[in-house]
């Protein structure tokens, strides 16, 4: 098991190199240059711009630039953002906690609701409960999140006036006591987390339902009934563990999404998160910042897959890695 893990971990390295190289290539080949920075930010002087071009060797061939970048990244130096000259790591570190918080919370609520909803609808496929959740899922899938966000803002923020509609803290946040601060952030998070949960819940509850329906048809479930085991125990112990297996893969794939942040949601709710940071970085061709985001995303995607595989081996005794 350990040697399998190490082997897998090692094989991620060329994959990571490939991902970063292709991303590097694409973003550098895209029209627009950071040396247009001056037009976008008049405070940057011509010398500063020259210095940037020299520092990042923007006048060299792309391959040289990539190797240069790679050399620094190996030392965990992602460079400085073109936009304000601060370290990429620092800029990402500022934005990461809030995105992580929102995504972790919504993933938590998605799992919390998706399992009961999926399991109950699988017990009576096409029953009343299942029909209702199907409708709900249909709405969840087809309703754009920004539209739902706007509706909720209108209802809770403006009509009822009970929830804040933008940002993550109130303007008087700094004057509040620490207990009130947490409450303040929690209040700001309710709407974005709800919207993110609603969209994800639709899909995940369907996965749970589909897997459970499939598992409940299996012979070993019939055996369990024939042995006199109660329905609740059969569903929650014997069926659920089998139905969990395919969900592990899906969960593994959602790990990088934890840091990804949604540009649309963050824009609607004016949340300073990763999504907007990377979106703005892309628009201004802030190469170091973009590549910083790419590396983090790629590492998480690969790690997520690896963790999913390991969990799979742990949960399914039929899988044995050589």
């Amino acid at each position, binding site marked *: 098991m350990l040697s399998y893990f190490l082997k897998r971990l090692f094989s991620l390295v060329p994959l990571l190199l490939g991902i970063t190289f292709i991303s590097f290539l694409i973003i550098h080949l895209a029209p627009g240059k950071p040396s247009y920075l001056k037009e976008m930010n008049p405070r940057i002087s011509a010398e500063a711009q020259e210095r940037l071009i020299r520092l990042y060797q923007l006048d060299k061939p792309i391959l040289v630039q990539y190797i240069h970048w790679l050399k620094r990244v190996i030392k965990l130096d992602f460079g400085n953002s073109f936009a304000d000259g601060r370290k990429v790591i620092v800029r990402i570190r500022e934005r990461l906690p809030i995105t992580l918080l929102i995504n972790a919370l919504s993933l938590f609520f998605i799992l919390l609701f998706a399992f009961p909803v999926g399991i109950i609808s699988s017990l009576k496929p096409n029953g009343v409960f299942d029909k209702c959740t199907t409708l709900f899922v249909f709405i969840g899938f087809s309703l754009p999140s920004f539209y739902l966000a706007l509706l909720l803002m209108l209802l809770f923020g403006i009509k009822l006036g009970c929830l804040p509609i933008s940002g993550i803290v109130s303007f008087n946040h700094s004057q509040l006591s620490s207990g009130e601060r947490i409450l303040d952030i929690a209040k700001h998070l309710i709407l974005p987390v709800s919207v993110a949960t609603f969209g994800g819940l639709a899909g995940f509850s369907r996965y749970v339902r589909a897997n459970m329906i499939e598992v409940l048809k299996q012979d070993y479930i019939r055996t369990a009934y*024939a042995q006199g085991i109660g329905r609740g125990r059969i569903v929650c112990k014997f069926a659920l563990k089998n139905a969990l297996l395919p969900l592990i893969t899906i969960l593994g794939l959602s790990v990088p999404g934890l840091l990804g942040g949604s540009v649309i949601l963050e824009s609607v709710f004016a949340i300073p998160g990763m999504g907007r940071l990377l979106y703005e970085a892309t628009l201004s061709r802030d190469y170091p910042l973009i590549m910083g985001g790419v590396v983090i995303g790629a590492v998480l995607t690969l790690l997520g897959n690896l963790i999913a595989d390991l969990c799979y081996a742990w949960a*399914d005794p039929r899988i044995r890695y050589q």
Partner: protein
Amino acid sequence: MYILEVKNLKVYFSQKGKVLKAVDGISFFIREGESLGLAGESGSGKTVTALSLTRLVSHPYLLSGEVLFRGKNIFRLKSADLRKIRGAEIAYIFQNPLSSLNPVFTVGNQMIEIIRLHHRKTKREAEVYALKMLEKVGIPDAYKNLRSYPHQLSGGMNQRVMIAMALSCHPSLLIADEPTTNLDATTQVQILQLIERIKKEERLSLLFITHDLEILRRFTNRVAIMYAGQIVEIGENLFEKPFHPYTYALLSARSGIIPEQGLKGEAPSPFAFPAGCRFHPRCPFKRSICEEKEPILQEKKKGHFVACHFPQTMVK
């Protein structure tokens, strides 16, 4: 004394708006300590019959008639009372041992579950008891195999595990639904001998379902032949003196003595059975009444019932 009595059992399913008559009005009994064999082509309703005896059929469109187990009507029991009969009084062995065991739990885990369900035992006691049961059904290295997963064992071993699980709560009726069909020949013999041995040791009554008539001849006291959801013939010494042309055809198809008398055509669709006798389209002895009037089971000889307008006395 009957341990099980089935009266006019009907099990229908609804598929795409059409009614599928899997079992259509069958009656039989099993005496205390007796082995009844149930034979017939695939799709004749054998497995559905076996499952409906403890209401295991899922989502039937109709489940009617009476199943009396020691005088108690299974179809009238509350589900909590039914669960006390399932496993503890009536136990099953199924066709595919590997798929009938849960792939993600160890053999021991699954055995302990059912032992503790029906007996007051601590986990430790249940494990000791499970070991004893595994040894009883001839599983070598029981301690190691208790910690194995079903996929790590052979088909024969898994079937032994199924038998150990079935026996672990001392049932009085064992229902074996094609328990040897997917096993290789030598394993088949071993499993059959095991079932025969435990039947004697535990004084079990047995309902043995198979399409292998040779097994029934050796291991059962009486045999019922099913065709198109009905019992067409039931009795002792069925194989020596069959009365129903279908039984005769099954026997000759097996022995291959008179190949031209073997079965022609296919079993009728359970969505639309032919009028009259359901066997008439394939019957070499049919007359006009066979196409109009459905024959009922009648006692032809003592304890030997046949559903045929013109029962033949055919000696093989």
